[in-house]
């Protein structure tokens, strides 16, 4: 009888091990089901959030339509940094076209230009043109028509040995359509 004590103990231990493994599978399944439940809740929350965002986006899209139209109107006047190279030649061409002579041309990039507490990088151009008063105004008008976003920072007329108009323009180079937006 004694010789069967260890086999009995072994069998019972094996059986209990089997029971333990079986119980652990219950725990694993319970944990997994809890994960599923949590994930389901998260997915439901995400779906709700997505629906809210879609709705908001739809509203924003509708509301931003005038802005789209507005940008579309001005989009062709936007200047990139590469475009700044053609400003001075364009001003000269306009001077020739309006029969005024240009001189003292200076241009420099001003990346720290502050406008209404916002930094708006600009290409600052200073140019002097001489000629008749009405031709100078025509040239100024032509420049403002060619570069409608150009801001006239200063204009000074002096009348010494002929009428001379010295103008300083700021050409904004930061107005670009964002990559993520399609007008």
């Amino acid at each position, binding site marked *: 009888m004694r010789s069967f004590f260890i086999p009995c103990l072994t069998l019972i231990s094996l059986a209990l091990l089997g029971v333990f493994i079986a119980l652990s599978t219950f725990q*694993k399944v319970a944990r997994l089901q809890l994960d599923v439940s949590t994930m389901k809740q998260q997915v439901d929350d995400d779906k709700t959030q997505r629906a809210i965002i879609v709705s908001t986006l739809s509203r924003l899209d509708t509301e931003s339509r005038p802005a789209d139209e507005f940008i579309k109107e001005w989009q062709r006047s936007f200047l990139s940094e590469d475009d700044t190279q053609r400003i001075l030649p364009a001003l000269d061409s306009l001077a020739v076209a309006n029969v005024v002579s240009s001189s003292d041309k200076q241009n420099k990039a001003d990346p720290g230009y502050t406008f209404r507490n916002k930094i708006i990088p600009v290409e600052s151009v200073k140019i002097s043109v001489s000629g008749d008063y009405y031709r100078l105004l025509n040239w100024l008008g032509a420049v403002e028509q060619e570069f409608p976003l150009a801001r006239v920072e200063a204009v000074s007329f002096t*009348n010494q040995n002929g009428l001379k108009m010295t103008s300083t323009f700021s050409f904004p180079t930061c107005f670009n359509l964002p990559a993520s937006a399609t007008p």
Partner: protein
Amino acid sequence: MIRETTALAFARSFTPDPVDRKVRLSERFSKRPLIAVTVHENALEVSCVAFADGKPTFSETELFNFGEVDSEAAFIRTYAAKHDTTDVAINLQYGFTAMVSNRVKLAGSRAENLDQMQYNPEKIIGEPEQIRLKHALATHPTHNFALRFDFQRGDLDRIATVMAKANLTVVHFHCGMVDLINFIIARHWKEVSSETAFIFVDTRAVFTCLLEPRALGQPGFSMDTAAQDLREEVGSRLTEILRPGRRVILINDSPVDVAAMIAERETKNEIVTPLEGIAFPELYAVCADISDHYAYDLYPNEQRAKPFAPRSYIIVPILFWALIATSGVCGVVNSYRRLRAESHLNELTQQKNAIALDMISLAQQTTGIKAKESLAHDLRDWLALAPPTQGFWIKINEALRGTLQVQNMSIDRIPGQPQMRLVITVNASEREANEAFNQVSAVLGKEGYKTIDFKTYTVPNGYQYDHLLNVPVD
């Protein structure tokens, strides 16, 4: 230990070892084939044994008379092979002496008796062990008397060798005569009155002895008697043992009508025939193996029996397989549930990832829309604070039209503010200058410019107009 554990798990441990003499023959061979060999001095008889309800039954016997050397082993081997068995029970029918002993003292149980007779026989037989002999005992049920049968080890070794040559395992090696007396003592002792004559007769042997409630008488026997001498031998033994009125327990397995012979003697003996109708009563007693007090087995060599588990341990394999089966079922069910949950979780994870991608896309669209709105806002501000100046100068020019001479004029926007400073210097009289400056102010007011600061100065040859303005913002 692994073998024992496996055997216990598959409930094989509950089957006793065929050579475990502590277990009755009927229990050891309830499901195993067994042959019984009755060994006479010059012949042997073989038959198959089967057990029904613990009682042995026998097939027809086959007789083999000893001939050439080892021919008996070949005969037994062939017989065993034909009946598909490897185990043999031996009923020894010759080669013993018998006497009454009053020194026999049995131990408490069959197991203890067998152990002591195997390893320490003097403790039971009450005399020093004789190496050449092995003993068998038929013990009185209430007193320390026993019929002690002594066998020559040489005879027993020879028989064991024959069985080994026949490739058989000896599982029970008994003397039929001893077992027959033990059977009567165990099952029919109530038939024993004050003096009872026990008479056994078969085709080759006559055995008699006196059974008493408090004693056993000296046995008388004749083995391997020729058939023609049997009747005479029986008569002789009856003369020795019969007394008027003495009860007779008769077991007759011979063609001789022993009961008639007793009746002829007119000694008015009452005859009891307890094993009437049972074929091979000696072999029956050997294979019935009923006594709790058997204290011998004649097998001369060592045989180690594997232990077997008690029936009460059956709960262990039942519990084991029940728990394993339950665990297995739980495992299978939970595997299925886990697979289903994992599949569901994967599906949900994919949905979540898809939604996250959607959200990123939506966030990009929202950022795009906000960026456009911001751009539009900045652009609007920029345009509002940078109106074209050509029209402004035309209006100023109209306001200054007259005889006065403009020396210079300028506008300077205040950086980052919707403000600008207008400065005009003219060569004119004070009245003309004031008039012109008033006209300029009027024009500016009409255009929506608001005055922040306004000054006029006297300069050489004229006057200077200095007006800080708020630019109108739409």
